[in-house]
């Protein structure tokens, strides 16, 4: 019976495990124990998510009716290739963060709130997984709120006082976005009488194009765009990423905006018909905004004086690539977006992990204090260079694969201007990445730094093994998935064909 208890309910366990372990963590509140639990739960979720991805890649769609209430009345988890791909990205990043977290959290968060910290981390993880799995649009909103509330708390735990300010800023904008989304969902519910996404799509097919529907559509898109930090709604992102604790920066940069992009794709292509979008001028807006985001984000990144802010603005630019791919409205464009979702999670995760290591050693991530640090921390530095080359899009790295796909999509649609922007974006990325490498490797340090001194049982000035291992796994992932695109490209392509085929069962 125990075996069916797990195999029949795989989809549900993915959400139940983090839900169960969050309160247990608060009760335990022992740093090492909680960290271990976090690692075990995240890794189990990764295994389950991979299993689900394997299951759905044969063409089946997993349906799970929560509480036994039959859809469309009850909440249904409906998992196809796209859902599974997002769930795998989220749980893989959570696992990598869990490996990375211990020393970094020990240094940055005071001991008595470790239980609460990891619990909030699990709740954020739970929310993101829930968004990825659910087939009910109101349930999606609830999970969106769970993950957002948890991430506000996580960001506010940053050591810098500005963390509070950034968290509050994010809270205001995030709540605005969620409210827009909720009003949109409410209007769509008024128009269709259902909250189940597949069912809503069915009734939207014959629904007349009323102002009510158009308003719902606009509100949903704007709400999600705020969450996804699509230019010009990105204002919360740089502060939130820059002042959050290192682990949180890694996790949010690698997953939170990606999941919001997934919601956008789901709403545009599964709930509302792509044809519906064609009647509006949204595709053009998305393409243009994507282009502007690439230029603006890269430009701002070049002028930053701190590593975290630079990477945050670079994220704004990278989100631009994904949005542009969606705007092309073609299979190739969508594939590029999804692929970039996965690839960007890898490279930005690795970059922020490297920053976390520098912060661990120098206590700050401003360029002034990091001069010459790359020579003192060669392992960290070279892993970071691999991820940075990905960011630029050098052949042989993941960045190249997804940008190549996006370029092809742009050429296919004859968006010559966008082709130029994509290439220009890569060039600008090369500029800010070079700036980073120059500061870290070629400039002379201004102050003396502590190196490998032993004091008691601790060695000061040495990078913790767990953090370095997690960083290298991510960095090697950047290269591996750049050379062997089988898994990532195929699951992205498969998800897109399923998405465009329409909703079948």
């Amino acid at each position, binding site marked *: *019976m125990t075996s069916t*208890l797990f195999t029949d*309910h795989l989809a*549900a366990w993915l959400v*139940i495990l983090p*839900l*169960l372990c*969050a*309160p*247990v963590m*608060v*009760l335990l509140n022992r740093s090492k124990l909680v960290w271990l639990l976090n690692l075990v739960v995240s890794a189990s979720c990764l295994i389950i998510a991979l299993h689900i991805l394997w299951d759905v890649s044969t063409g089946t769609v997993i349906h*799970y*009716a*929560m*509480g*036994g209430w039959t859809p469309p009345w009850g909440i249904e988890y409906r998992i196809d290739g796209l859902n599974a791909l997002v769930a795998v990205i989220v749980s893989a990043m959570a696992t990598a963060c869990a490996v990375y977290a211990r020393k970094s959290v020990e240094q940055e968060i005071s001991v008595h709130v470790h239980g609460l910290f990891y619990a909030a981390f699990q709740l954020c993880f739970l929310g993101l997984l829930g968004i990825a799995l659910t087939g009910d649009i109101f349930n999606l909103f609830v999970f969106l709120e769970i993950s957002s509330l948890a991430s506000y708390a996580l960001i506010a735990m940053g050591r810098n006082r500005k963390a509070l300010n950034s968290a509050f800023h994010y809270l205001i904008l995030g709540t605005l976005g969620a409210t827009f989304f909720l009003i949109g969902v409410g209007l769509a519910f008024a128009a269709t009488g259902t909250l189940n996404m597949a069912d809503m799509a069915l009734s939207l097919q014959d629904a007349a194009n009323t102002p009510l529907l158009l308003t719902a559509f606009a509100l949903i898109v704007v709400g999600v765009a705020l969450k996804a930090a699509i230019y010009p709604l990105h204002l919360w992102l740089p502060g939130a990423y820059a002042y959050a604790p290192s682990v949180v920066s890694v996790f949010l940069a690698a997953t939170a905006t990606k999941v919001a992009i997934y919601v956008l794709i789901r709403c545009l292509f599964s709930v509302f018909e792509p044809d519906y979008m064609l009647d509006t001028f949204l595709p053009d807006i998305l393409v243009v905004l994507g282009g502007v985001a690439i230029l603006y984000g890269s430009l701002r990144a070049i002028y930053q004086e701190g590593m975290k802010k630079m990477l945050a603005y670079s994220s704004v630019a990278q989100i631009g690539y994904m949005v542009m791919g969606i705007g092309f409205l073609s299979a190739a464009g969508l594939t590029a977006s999804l692929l970039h979702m996965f690839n960007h999670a890898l490279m930005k995760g690795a970059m922020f992990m490297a920053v976390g290591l520098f912060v661990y050693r120098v206590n700050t991530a401003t360029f002034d204090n990091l001069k010459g640090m790359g020579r003192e921390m060669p392992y960290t530095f070279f892993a970071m260079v691999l991820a940075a080359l990905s960011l630029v899009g050098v052949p042989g790295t993941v960045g190249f694969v997804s940008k190549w796909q996006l370029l092809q999509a742009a050429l296919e649609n004859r968006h010559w201007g966008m082709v130029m922007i994509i290439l220009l974006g890569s060039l600008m990325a090369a500029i800010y990445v070079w700036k980073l490498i120059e500061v870290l490797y070629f400039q002379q340090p201004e102050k003396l730094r502590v190196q490998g001194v032993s004091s008691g049982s601790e060695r000061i000035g040495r990078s913790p093994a767990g953090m370095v291992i997690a960083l290298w796994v991510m960095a090697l992932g950047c290269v591996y998935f750049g050379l062997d695109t089988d898994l990532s490209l195929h699951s992205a392509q498969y998800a897109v064909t399923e998405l465009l085929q329409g909703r079948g069962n």
Partner: protein
Amino acid sequence: MTQNSILRTIAKFLLPIILLYAFYVQFHGDYSPGGGFQAGVIFSSAFLLYALVFGLDAAAKVMPDWVLSTVACLGVLLYAGTGIAGMVFGGEFLNYSTLASEPVAGQHLGIILIELGVGLTVASVMLIIFFTFARRIRTQ
């Protein structure tokens, strides 16, 4: 305020009534308007009144922090546990019909347990929020 005998007397008189009403809203929630969330808020308001009239320290003695955070966690665990119990007995997550021999009785039992979990968590989290803010003001 602690010296005002009218306030103290009225508060002492009201406290059991508020608590009793909270329990009514909690356990009659499956038949009438109410449920765990509302009951939790009403329940916590009794302690709020106590804290306002008799002072924070007295209230913290009745409801220490560790009790509050433990109860908040137990509430969530009760909720999730009920859901898993539904799975163990052969239904889906949160399917209460399988909890008893008869579906209706199972639904009844399930919703009471779920709402109890919600009530425990809401009551304790409301108090945690109150204590957190109240202490900040006092230290300033």
